[in-house]
């Protein structure tokens, strides 16, 4: 219940924060909303020597449009994202996903930057990031770089972020016309995390065929992934129940699902298919309604 002692910094600017993480390297931990880090510290599964609380860097908590991109600052809370009009308009999938994370209290504190950096294999956001082809921006004292979501998640709780880097924002490209999206999730009953979560974006062409589909899956494997086989089956086809069912069957092809007391590998695989199909159905209905 009680974290080990640490030294605490609360920089007010990104530059100050970058200087601190550079100076303390591996021994420093960034603290954002604390909804993953503090529980770990309380169990002493994480015992940082220095904690750099970036929660006071105002500039990192913003949601804005920039040249057609939706730009979400790393410190935007799940609640900020779920309730933002701009997100609902430009990337409704993200708002829907945010609303499925944890509970009200967690959404009030937890941040998008923290969730992506932490990269829990059962976290919700990563699926949406993949399905939306998001770009993740990381800053370090030597400048910033942009990482495509598909390259960001490396392994169990491991991302492209390097020590000394701070995730500053997430950039979401504009959706094509006639797009629809949906997130469907099977909750782990105790923790509320995803046992299987499917974030889907589909876009239709003028004749109602699927121009492109993107399916991000979380909770199933050590890292979130795009169901590219299923996406390929959908592209260019006229949607039908059979097509959706056949494509969904394939979503976890080629991945090795996780197994634990909450679900076996076989069940995770099956649940991923079912939830992907349900997300596809909902996304298509929305695309057909042109609500996006």
């Amino acid at each position, binding site marked *: 219940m009680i974290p080990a002692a640490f030294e605490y910094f609360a920089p007010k600017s990104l530059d100050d924060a970058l200087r601190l993480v550079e100076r303390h390297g591996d021994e420093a931990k960034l603290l954002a909303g604390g909804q993953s880090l503090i529980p770990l510290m309380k169990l002493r599964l994480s015992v940082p020597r220095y904690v750099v609380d970036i929660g006071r860097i105002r500039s990192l908590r913003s949601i804005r449009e920039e040249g057609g991109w939706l730009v979400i600052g790393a410190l935007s809370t799940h609640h900020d994202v779920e309730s933002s009009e701009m997100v609902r308009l430009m990337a409704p999938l993200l708002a829907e996903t945010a609303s499925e994370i944890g509970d009200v209290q967690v959404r009030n504190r937890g941040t998008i930057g923290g969730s992506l950096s932490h990269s829990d294999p059962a976290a919700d956001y990563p699926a949406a990031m993949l399905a939306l082809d998001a770009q993740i921006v990381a800053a370090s004292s030597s400048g910033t770089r942009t990482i495509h979501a598909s390259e960001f998640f490396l392994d169990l709780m491991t991302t492209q972020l390097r020590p000394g880097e701070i995730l500053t924002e997430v950039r979401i490209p504009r959706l094509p016309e006639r797009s629809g999206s949906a997130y469907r999730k099977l909750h782990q009953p105790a923790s509320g995390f995803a046992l299987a979560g499917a974030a889907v974006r589909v876009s239709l062409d003028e004749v109602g065929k699927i121009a492109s589909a993107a399916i991000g899956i979380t909770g199933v494997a050590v890292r979130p992934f795009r169901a590219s086989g299923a996406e390929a089956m959908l592209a260019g086809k006229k949607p039908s129940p059979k097509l959706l069912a056949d494509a969904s069957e394939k979503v976890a092809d080629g991945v090795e699902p996780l197994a634990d*007391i909450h679900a076996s590998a076989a069940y995770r695989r099956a649940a991923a298919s079912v939830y992907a199909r349900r997300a596809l159905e909902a996304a298509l209905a929305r695309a057909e309604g042109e609500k996006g």
Partner: protein
Amino acid sequence: MATATKLIGKPIKRKEDPRLVQGIAHYVDDLTLPGMLHLGIVRSPYAHARVRSVDVSKALAAPGVVAVLTAEDVQGAIAPIPCAAQIPDMKPAPRPVLATNEVRFVGEGVAAVVAADRYALRDAMDLVEVDYEPLPAVVDLEKALRKDSPRVHDGLADNAAYHWALEGGDVKKAFKQADRVVKLRMLNQRLIPVAMEPRAVLAQYDRGDNRLTLWSSSQIPHILRTQIAAMLNFPEYGVYVIVPEVGGGFGSKLNVYPEEALACHLAIKLEKPVKWNEGRRENFLSTIHGRGESCDMELAVKRDGTILGMRARVLADLGAYYQLLTPLIPTLTGLMICGCYRIQNLSVEITGVLTNKMATDAYRGAGRPEATYFVERAMDAVAAELKIDPAELRRKNFPKPKDFPYATATGLIYDTANYQGALELALKKSGYKALRRQQAALRKKGRLLGIGLSSYVEICALGPSSAMPAGGWESATIRIEPTGRVRVLTGSSPHGQGEETSFSQIAADMLGVGLDDVIIVHGDTSAVPYGIGTFGSRTLAVGGTAIYRCCEKLRDKLLKIAGHLMQEDPAKLVLRAKQIVSKRDPKKSISFAETVGAAYTAKTLPPGVEPGLEATHFYEPSNFTFPFGTHVAVVEVDRETGEVKLVKYVAVDDCGNLINPLLVEGQVQGGIVQSIGQAMLEEAVYDDQGQLLTGELMDYAIPRAADVPKLETFHTVTPTPVNPMGVKGVGEAGTIGATPALVNAVVDALAPFGVRHLDMPLKRERVWKAIHQAPSESAGRPRRSK
């Protein structure tokens, strides 16, 4: 009832709530004393290991640390945890307060660290170095009983703690006459009680008075006092146990724990107040668990559904050591195994099994949910096999209302019941017939609706002392103070059930005063008479009756005094609304205040009447009470994922007369939801090393608000003749009646797949597997029936 009823029977808002909703009530952890130290327990990470050495030197040197104790330091000073249950030929398995030489479950205490504050304490606990030599762990019940199994306790012949058996009627003949024998093997899984307030203890010693005060989050303040005095060999008159607010117990605080004794021992030794508060993970490991019984049941049946006989063999997972009632709980399963059916030929064998796990003990329902589950599942298996409607099968085997008092083959006397009445009401309220039609229609479309019934009877108001390990009576003292206010001292120890309100209702009505004129005092052993405590749905029926009897005594005395003052025959007087009024001439009256005043000024008392207004009653019940009811659960199973949606829930309970329907409703709702937890979500899962894999709320799911629908609850009222208010008790009904209804519903939903039984919890994957591995259906695709 003798008095004009004003408050009894009404849904009175609770008196305890204003302080609780404002956050100004106090639980143990809210208390702070000057100079207070904090105690922490270093616990074993192994289920079974030899303790080679414990090195406390680094911990002792850490900042803020005051003391570190190991088993050696308390040997001879603190006796093991008491077990009040004795079963013939039971093997000994006493729990030392700190492990000596060997640890026998994950979470067993090895060292006690005391420090100036929580933070320093936490740091120091990591510095205690224990050298363990892991030993093979005993986890699985069947394997535990094999000859070649490792022993939980060296030197015992085997891991069977005891064999308990009971036989009634002629079982052999019943099975010979049977058209069919229906067999079912079932598991009632181990559960973790999860009271929202973990345990907490604060001990203070005053050397001047040689007085030891123990604040504990407990359901049994007096028993705790006696046991602590005995464990520490401290004079009982010097031990003061105080139980402030308790954040839920469900049986988990009906016990005596090492931390209580250790905190007291340390407070004496250090002459400083010592507080211990349990973390949730500790709570999962080292507070008692519940259930953990498996059963092989056979029912001998006639083709028409008549049950002729029953055989049941139960294995009960006791854990590594006995807590207060550990061995007793499974025997309650034995006593109630025939449920609410006329099964006069039966045999039950129970084997208590020692395993390398935390002890099981009384968790809400304590032995009866297991019995009810087993018999109700088996009844559904019979119904399915004979193709008889489950409602019809139950109806057929109920004893009739005129058969009560009804003697069971297990030796109990059921007080009174109308099982048919509750069943019919439940069928009507749930629209049972229509549901069956709907089910058939949905099945044609490939949808899986399931309807489950459970008719239960439970044993409550524990109980006559002859049948209880440590007395089954309850006490009350009532004092009418000179100003006319009424102080009720009860030996019961309510902790959320609301008896401050229901007891006030009883006293106010009986004495003709207002609700706010009454105060209920409980949980302070120096203030209230010796009592047994709150568990076994006994508080109202036994503790409440003690109050009722005290009120009768006081009322008689008041009428005598008033009669003397009014020159009226006391038999012709009644007490009401703070007046004592003549029945013959309602204009003739004297005020309650004046009468009370006369009792204290003692100048105008009738001859032979003592001054003052105080009465004490120790109420000894003549029997248990046996509440009953029928629950109906309606579920829909998602055939693709195995998710179960509870569509509708109808509960009909009969707990006799209702003193406060609001409180009854609260108990029923809460109990059913705990039951939903057992049926759908909860299980203490161990690996084969004896590690608890569901050791925290991240992995052990208890129901949340969104997991449950609105429950529809109804009552039939069959007052018990056992006590004067005709109340039976309702604290555990929900956890007893609901579990089988849910499982029966899910199994019913899966009937098209030939599923006969599924063990709890009905996790999605388990249900999904049952569908997808079913022989009669291919890969779960909807099959259109012709």
